[in-house]
C-alpha cells in the first residue's frame, strides 16, 4: 500500500462520486418534492447513455449528445409524472410498483432498439489521455467528470438557494401542503423537478457512457448506488447529495480495491448503519 495507491484510489473514488452526484442529485430532488421512490431513475441514466450514443453516431458531436440525452429524458420524465405518477399521489407502494414497471419496459425497449452489445461513447480528443503529475497519472476524462459535477452542483445550489424558483422548490420540499396553501402550484413544481431530475440522470448516463460504457443492465446496476447516496445524505438535501456521493464513491472504490469479495457489503453495510442511527440520513429532516 504505497502513497500512490491511496492517492490514485482516492482520485478514482472522487471521480466516481462525481458521476454519482449527477445521478443522485436528481433522485434526491424528486424524492424531496414528491416523496416518490422512483425505481426507474437508473433507467434514465441508461437511456440517456443510449440516446447520447445514437447522437454521437449520427452527428459526431459529444456536446450535442449531452444536450439531446438530457432533453429526451426530461420529456420521458415529464410524461411519466404527468400521465401516470400524478394519478396515485401519496401511494408509496403503488409508486414503487409502477416505477419498477416502467424500469422493466425501458430495459426491454433499450434491448429492442440498441441490442445487447455493450458500447462506449466516443469521447472528444481533448478529453482523452492522461495528465501526469508528480509521477501519478490522472485520466483527463475523470478530471472532466469532476469539473462537470462541480459546475452542476454550483448551478443547482445557486438556483435553489438564490432564485425565486429555488425558493418555491424548497418550500415544496419542506412542506408541500403549506406550499400549496400559500399559492404555489405544487403539481407544476413537481413536474419541473421531475424533468430536471431525469435530465441530470441522463447527463450522468452520457458522461458515464464515456468510461463505464452503455450496456443492458446498467440501469439496475447504478440504481442501488443512487439510492445509497440519497439515503446516506438525506432526502431532498443538496449538501446531503454532495457528501453522500463522495462518501459512496470512496467507499465503493476502496471497498473494491481492498476487500474485493466484500465490496458491496462495505458499501451497503455502513449505509444501513447510518440509517439505523440517523433514520433521516446525514442531512435530512423528517
Amino acid at each position: 500500500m504505497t502513497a500512490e495507491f491511496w492517492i490514485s484510489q482516492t482520485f478514482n473514488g472522487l471521480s466516481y462520486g462525481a458521476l454519482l452526484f449527477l445521478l443522485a442529485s436528481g433522485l434526491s430532488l424528486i424524492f424531496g418534492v414528491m416523496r416518490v421512490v422512483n425505481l426507474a431513475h437508473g433507467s434514465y441514466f441508461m437511456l440517456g447513455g443510449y440516446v447520447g450514443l445514437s447522437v454521437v453516431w449520427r452527428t459526431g458531436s459529444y456536446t450535442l449528445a449531452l444536450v439531446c440525452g438530457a432533453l429526451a429524458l426530461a420529456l420521458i420524465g415529464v410524461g411519466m409524472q404527468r400521465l401516470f405518477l400524478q394519478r396515485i399521489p401519496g401511494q408509496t407502494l403503488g409508486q414503487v410498483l409502477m416505477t419498477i414497471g416502467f424500469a422493466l419496459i425501458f430495459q426491454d425497449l433499450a434491448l429492442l432498439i440498441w441490442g445487447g452489445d455493450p458500447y462506449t461513447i466516443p469521447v472528444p480528443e481533448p478529453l482523452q489521455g492522461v495528465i501526469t503529475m508528480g509521477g501519478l497519472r490522472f485520466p483527463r476524462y475523470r478530471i472532466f467528470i469532476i469539473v462537470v459535477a462541480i459546475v452542476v452542483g454550483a448551478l443547482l445550489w445557486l438556483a435553489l438557494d438564490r432564485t425565486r424558483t429555488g425558493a418555491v422548490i424548497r418550500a415544496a420540499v419542506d412542506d408541500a401542503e403549506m406550499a400549496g396553501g400559500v399559492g404555489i402550484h405544487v403539481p407544476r413544481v413537481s413536474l419541473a423537478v421531475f424533468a430536471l431530475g431525469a435530465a441530470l440522470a441522463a447527463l450522468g448516463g452520457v458522461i458515464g457512457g464515456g468510461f463505464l460504457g452503455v450496456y443492458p443492465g446498467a440501469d439496475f446496476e447504478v440504481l442501488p448506488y443512487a439510492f445509497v447516496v440519497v439515503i446516506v445524505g438525506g432526502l431532498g438535501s443538496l449538501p446531503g447529495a454532495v457528501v453522500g456521493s463522495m462518501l459512496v464513491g470512496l467507499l465503493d472504490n476502496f471497498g473494491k480495491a481492498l476487500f474485493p469479495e466484500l465490496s458491496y457489503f462495505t458499501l451497503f453495510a455502513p449505509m444501513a448503519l447510518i440509517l439505523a442511527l440517523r433514520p433521516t440520513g446525514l442531512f435530512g429532516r423528517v
Partner: protein
Amino acid sequence: MKRQHVLAVLGAVIAAAAAAPLLPSYPLTLLTQAVIIAILAMSLDLLLGYTGLSSLGHAAYFGVSAYAVGILATEHQAGFVVCAVAGVALAALTAALFGLLAIRAVGTYFLMITLALGMVVWGLAFRWVSMTKGDNGIAGIPRPELGLPWSLWAPLPFFYFALGGLLLAWALLAVLVRSPFGLTLKGVRESETRMRALGYNVWLHKYLAFVLAGTFAGFAGVFWAYYNGFVSPVDVQLVTSVETLLMVALGGPGTLAGPVLGAAVIVFLKNFVSVYTKRWLLILGAVYIGVILFAPKGIFGALRGRQR
C-alpha cells in the same frame, strides 16, 4: 376478501393437486414453481397486508435460506433435515438482525432501509465468490432423499412435496393471523398510536412480524433451492423482491389466499408470455402499471368493484 373467494382459491389449489397426475411435465413444473413462490408471497403478506409494512428486500431471507441449502447440500452433502433447519434458521437470524435496524424506520424510510439491507445480501451473493460462487451461482443441488418410496427427482412427487409445504405454511399462518397476536398486528396496521395508547408494545409486534415473515420466506427458500437445483444472485436481487410485492398487491394484501392467487398468476404469465414472445419484460412492466392503475385493490377487489 370474502369467505367464498378464499374457498375459491383453496378449491383451485385442491383441483390442481387432483389434476396434477394428468398434467404433462412442463405445466407441472410451472405449477410447482407457483406453489413455492406462493409460500414466499404469503410470508411477505404477513408484513405488507397484516402489519402494514412494505418491505423492498424480502428476497433476502428467501435467498439466504436457498444459499444455505445449496451450499450445505453440495459441498457438505448434508441431508434434508439439516439443510431445511439450517436454511430456515439462517433466514430467521438474518431477519432478526435486519429487523433491529429496519423496524425503527417508517413509511418511505422503511422501504429504503429494507431495500438497502436486501442489497447487502445481494452484494454478498454476488461478490463473496469463495462462499457463493458469485454470478455463476451454486449448481447441482441434489433433490432430497426422504426415505419415501417415490423419488423426488420426478416432477409429480416433488410437486406434492412442495404442495405439502404450501399447505403447512398456509395452516400455520392462518392460525397466526387469527390469534390475538395476529389481531394485534392488524391493529398496528390500522393505527399505531391507538395500539400504543392501549398499552401494546408496537415495536415488539412489528419486530416479531418481521422475523416471522423472514422465517416463512426462508421456508420457501428451502423448496426453491431443491426445485431449481441452482441458486444465484438473481434469487436475491431487487426485482425478485419487487415481483413478490406485485404478487401480494395483485392478489389482495391482508388475505392469505390472495398472495397464492397473485403468485400463480404472475408465475404462469411470466412463463407463458416468454414462450410466445421475447418481449415478455415489456408485458410484465405493463402488468405492473396496469395493476396499480386499474386494480389497486387486487383481483378480487376489481371484481367486487365490477359487480357494484
